């Protein structure tokens, strides 16, 4: 009888755990819902077929697994929008030319729940169940790397953005065979924090907060390496696993070090906790960088504390892109005047690159697309002009943006700047 009671108790807890986990992940993203996940496939397919624009052949299936829910859920909707808009635009223009036949694109989207294991299973499902001939990626190394591993395993071409390229490259010792990454190079990205901090007077002391994920590890090392080159000194560094909620002791150490510059490589929920801890401990640096976390929805997550938080950016009107401003203007109202809309642009460009490769391949055979993708050179896209290198990376230009109100104007470099950098960080004023 006791055993029955124990089984019932544990089972009830298990049932609750499973239910709560799903409810939690469904709302974790803040700007996403399960409805978005479930309707994604249907809406994308509809956009592909409804706007065929004269496309005649069978649809070409592009598959993607996005963090529509979970801790990285803020990134899912803008990426989804970018993919859907690009597919709709290409189909409206007649589809993709494959060996003289215009064929529409069909986009299939699955929710990865921000979970690398789910990324693996859903990516395989896109290939085996949905017959995707090419894959489109999501965001950050923890999701992009398992996605790329499946692409190499299954020998299906896959292209990602919004994933710093060196951390991604380092995950495959033998080099990626079917996977590609189009984004910034961390050496250039980590230099931006110092170069942009030079815009304001500061004591050149830097404190680092880095998590133990790929990019936290890689970029933390790069900031340490590059600081002296730009005249800065790293006075302290706190490492912590993702999911850390109490930053009090780390912030106290940073405050005691007297650092005027704070750089954090951190996931969104952790950045919220870090910013609140800095505010609570009355630590107001001259410049503060919640990298990765500060990109999308940071102002909604921390409210007025976001004011003055700076982040590296990856798109500017004058960075050599073609048609980027139109996509930016069309999405600014929904995804904000800043990096949320830049996510849309990055995703949009991935479809353009893949469509171009399919046309040049003249076939939907994965190997032919892969060969064409590797040969991509000087391709004008809405993100920038794209050339894929022998290591399957295409490095895009980098800049710095700062939260000012609900927008993220570019503050560095000077020739692209649309606003002046605010300092010390207004949102962290005691």
């Amino acid at each position: 009888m006791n055993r029955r009671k124990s089984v019932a108790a544990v089972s009830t807890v298990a049932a609750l755990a499973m239910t709560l986990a799903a409810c939690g992940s469904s709302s974790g993203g803040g700007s996403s819902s399960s409805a978005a996940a479930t309707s994604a496939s249907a809406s994308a397919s509809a956009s592909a077929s409804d706007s065929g624009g004269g496309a005649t052949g069978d649809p070409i299936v592009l598959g993607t697994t996005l963090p529509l829910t979970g801790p990285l859920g803020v990134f899912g909707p803008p990426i989804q929008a970018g993919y859907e808009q690009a597919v709709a635009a290409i189909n409206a223009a007649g589809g993709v030319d494959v060996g003289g036949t215009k064929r529409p694109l069909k986009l299939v989207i699955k929710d990865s729940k921000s979970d690398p294991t789910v990324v693996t299973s859903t990516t395989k499902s896109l290939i085996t169940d949905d017959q995707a001939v090419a894959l489109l990626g999501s965001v950050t190394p923890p999701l992009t790397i398992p996605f790329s591993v499946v692409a190499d395993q299954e020998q299906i071409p896959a292209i990602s953005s919004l994933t710093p390229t060196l951390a991604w490259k380092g995950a495959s010792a033998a080099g990626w065979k079917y996977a590609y990454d189009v984004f910034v190079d961390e050496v250039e990205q980590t230099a931006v924090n110092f170069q942009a901090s030079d815009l304001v007077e500061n004591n050149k002391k830097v404190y680092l907060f880095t998590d133990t994920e790929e990019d936290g590890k890689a970029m933390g090392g790069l900031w340490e390496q590059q600081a002296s080159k730009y005249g800065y000194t790293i006075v302290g560094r706190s490492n912590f696993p993702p999911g850390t909620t109490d930053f009090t002791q780390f912030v106290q150490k940073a405050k005691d070090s007297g650092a005027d510059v704070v750089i954090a490589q951190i996931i969104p929920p952790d950045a919220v906790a870090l910013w609140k801890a800095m505010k609570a401990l009355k630590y107001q640096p001259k410049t503060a960088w919640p990298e990765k976390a500060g990109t999308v929805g940071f102002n909604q997550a921390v409210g007025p504390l976001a004011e003055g938080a700076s982040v590296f950016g990856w798109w500017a009107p004058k960075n050599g892109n073609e048609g980027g401003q139109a996509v930016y203007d069309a999405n600014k109202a929904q995804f904000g005047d800043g990096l949320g809309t830049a996510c849309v642009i990055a995703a949009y460009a991935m479809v353009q690159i893949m469509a171009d490769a399919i046309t040049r391949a003249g076939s939907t055979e994965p190997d032919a697309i892969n060969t064409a993708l590797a040969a991509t050179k000087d391709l004008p896209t809405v993100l920038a002009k794209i050339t894929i290198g022998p290591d399957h990376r295409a490095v895009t230009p980098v800049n710095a943006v700062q939260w000012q109100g609900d927008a993220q104007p570019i503050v560095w470099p000077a020739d692209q700047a649309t606003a002046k950098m605010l300092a010390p960080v207004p949102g962290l004023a005691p």
Partner: protein
Amino acid sequence: MIGSPKRIGSGIAVWLVILGVLLYLPGHIGRGPQEILLNLLIWIGLAQAWNIIGGVGGQLSLGHSVFVGAGGYTLAMMMIKGGLSWPLAVIGGGLLSALLAWFLALPLLRLSGVYFTIGTSAVAIIALGWMVTWDWTGEARGLNIPLDALPSKTLKFQLIAFLAVLCCVVTYLILHSSFGLRLMAVRDDEGAASALGVSPRGVKAKAFIVSAFLTGLMGSTIAINQASIEPYSMFNLRWTVTALVMVIVGGMGTVWGPVIGAFIIYYLVDRSLQDQPVIQALLSGVLIILVISVAPDGVVGLARSAWAKVRGMRDSGDGDQQEPLTPGVVAHA
């Protein structure tokens, strides 16, 4: 062994036939069905391994994610840092998990009931916390196994099929052994079993170690299947909770319960409703509560009751008595 050798032999023969069919399938079915079946086999192996300690032994461990992670990480480390081949690494994954279980059994099996469950879940949480900060194993970044060192798709499927069937055969043999009888006696009444000369802690420790060994083997196949592993996935409590739910839904302490439970939870609920995450989760929860309240012996128990009624028996208790090595026998008696 309990039961006639002929009966046990025919039971094993059934599993060998199933294994033969599974080994033949790669290349003869589509990629999609093969992928679904592969994942189902992984879940069957995990659920069956948990069933040994949780169902047959009655010790509701929530710490088996430690053995999934240990198996996967041992395989990855042996292949990446040790340069060993995957067959050796798979065995290494199982052995290290068994060794870990041997150490953990010392403190954990001093606990019983809900305290054991809490203790094992604490171990799982500690292990995850350790792994995300352990530099040698890649911290939260995890490990990426070189693809050219991994088995082909066909071989991978056959390996997973073999190990899943192995888990089922081991459970079958335990249920038909004197060890299994002692284990069930301890599960149903530890005091009475002890009075009859059974060492409860020793019996439970052996079951815990065997269960961990099999879980470690399955964990290593998960690493082979994913190629890219990191601690949040490999040490996630989800492995244990899902396996537990599969066993409860299918029927605790039976050989076919975990197989049926894995099919229901993985295929019918998880896979078929993957585009409906909230409905999926709610259905899982409702299903467990329904099973606990309506059919506490799971689908297998329900089927046995139905079969007993068909045969005109008065209640399922009579039916159970004809199967002396099924769960609940001592409790019913």
